[in-house]
């Protein structure tokens, strides 16, 4: 298991490096740089040159890449060109906000997916199962901004239960954010539930057909006991690991969800950084996204191994 963890970490590290290199050169290929974005169109040549010299943008691309990579290796994320602040200081509260959003969504999604997925599996092809799989299909395919628009219409405008946009600043205390988080978290929860529930239903269906279930039934155990104490613990690892992986995938939608609700997270920051050609900030945000993705993938693997008694016995 340790060797497995090591290979996963190594390949995750390689992925991370490739991502950072791609983004560096992608942003390099974009027309304009931070100084043209900062000084806008009326900048004269002398002003532009001074700005570029100040932030080291006048150096050739390979030189800048190596100096940026060296700084990163020593833990220095650099300084935001437009905001004139260390990237770490800008990223941290944004990361906290996005982690809060994703955490709340995951905490709501897993129990919902477990309950409804199990119910759907118990009455396979029944009315509930068909209804549930329809909802899952819709939630998985309809884009987040459409779900967001419909939820805003229902809950913010029609019922007036929750605010339609978040007006809290990035550094606000967690307590202030919790009040504003309901709708963006609901959109994220919807997509997460869909992914987790589909897998959980499939796993429970698979385990219900196993011989140990039949044996337990022949011993005269009631069905609810078999499901609760035999099938569910066995079906939990795949569900959790898929939830971790889809949480990583769903993070892609976080960018647009945050934008729709004006939520002060990493996604809105990365979007802004692209528009402003603010390379250090974009690289920092991208690094955080990629690291999170890799960590979630590794977590999914570990969960599978730790929660599955078969692999545990095999290694000890």
């Amino acid at each position, binding site marked *: 298991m340790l060797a497995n963890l090591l290979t996963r970490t190594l390949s995750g590290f390689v*992925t991370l490096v*490739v*991502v950072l290199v791609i983004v560096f050169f992608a942003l390099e290929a974009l027309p304009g740089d931070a100084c043209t974005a900062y000084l806008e169109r009326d900048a004269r040549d002398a002003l532009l040159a001074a700005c570029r010299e100040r932030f080291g943008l006048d150096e050739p691309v390979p030189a800048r890449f190596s100096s940026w990579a060296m700084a990163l290796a020593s833990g220095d994320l650099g300084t935001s060109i437009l905001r004139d602040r260390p990237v770490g200081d800008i990223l941290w509260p944004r990361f906290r906000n996005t982690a809060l959003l994703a955490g709340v969504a995951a905490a709501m999604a897993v129990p919902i997916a477990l309950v409804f997925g199990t119910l759907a599996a118990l009455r396979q092809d029944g009315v509930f199962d068909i209804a549930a799989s329809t909802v899952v299909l819709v939630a998985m395919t*309809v884009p987040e901004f459409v779900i967001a628009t419909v939820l805003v219409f229902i809950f913010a405008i029609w019922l007036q239960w929750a605010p339609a946009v978040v007006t809290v600043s990035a550094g606000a205390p967690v307590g202030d954010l919790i009040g504003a988080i309901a709708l963006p978290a609901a959109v994220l929860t919807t997509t997460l539930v869909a992914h987790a529930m589909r897998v959980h239903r499939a796993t429970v269906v698979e385990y219900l057909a196993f011989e140990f279930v039949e044996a337990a039934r022949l011993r005269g155990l009631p069905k609810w006991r078999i499901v609760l104490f035999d099938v569910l613990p066995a079906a939990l690892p795949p569900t959790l690991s898929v939830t971790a992986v889809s949480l990583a995938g769903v993070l*892609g*939608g976080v960018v*647009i969800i945050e934008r729709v609700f004006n939520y002060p997270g990493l996604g809105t920051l990365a979007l802004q950084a692209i528009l402003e050609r603010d390379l250090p900030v974009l690289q920092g945000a991208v690094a955080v996204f990629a690291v999170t993705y890799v960590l979630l993938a590794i977590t999914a693997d570990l969960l599978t191994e730790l929660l599955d008694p078969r692999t545990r016995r095999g290694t000890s």
Partner: protein
Amino acid sequence: MSILLHHRARFAAVSSRASVIVPLLRVIWRRPSGAIGLCICAVHALLALLGGFIVPYDPLAQDPTAVLAAPSFAHPFGTDHLGRDVLSRTIVGGQTAMAVTGIAAILAVLWGGSVGILAAMRGGLADEAIMRLVDAVGALPYLLFLLLLAAFVGDSVVALIPALALFYGVAIVRVTRAAALSVYSTDFVQAAIVRGEPVGRVLRQEILPNVLDVILVDGALRWSWMILGFSALSFLGFGVAPPTPDWGLMIAETRHVLAIAPWAALWPCVALATFIVGFNLLIDTAGKLIGVDHEARGQR
């Protein structure tokens, strides 16, 4: 597995495309999910093709006397903030996205499919390098990549085509490689290689017919996700430029009047949602019937 492969090989090799599709549609029609998907897709295809001829109003015509008018007999879906007919705009609102992403999807299938098959056949370091690149692209939020590409190509929708093809082809590389690997190790391919048949011939005669259905089904799903990505770009202001009617852009433009004129944003929502759900129902049913399974890959 071998029975399935054999069946698939016969499926693709013996019959021409047209004589496969008609019976396939007939089988799809017998499944409830397939029938629903087929109906929705047919309606959307008709509307997209005939759009310009059947719209009650010019989708760009502004009527200052009927700004944000509620649905009525004259305007069944109401009007938007510039007094444009929402029904007309919704009917033609999918055309740009479908056309742009349609071309991009064909390009993506071509390059992704070729690279995937070649990676599976070559193996070794090239394969490893390609897969690391594919992994890296998968590790980033898809929207960030799309935005980078969109910022790169500027305001041109046509220039988005190669960008979309490039990005979405990456996922096709992974799927095709996996499918080609399992075919490559089968006896009939190995026999052909041992017989000394040239690589190109092995590729065309033995491998391609057996992975074609996987690539096509995946390409079709990719196309629907491309439409989502394109709509998201339009929604964020990086895709279609106003005043062109486009579902994503229409939702973005009319979101701020959601409280007083919800019809202007909700009808394009309905159009986009039904199209995506219907298309996925159709392709999922078709995929299951041909024996192409994508339960494992629900990611965008």
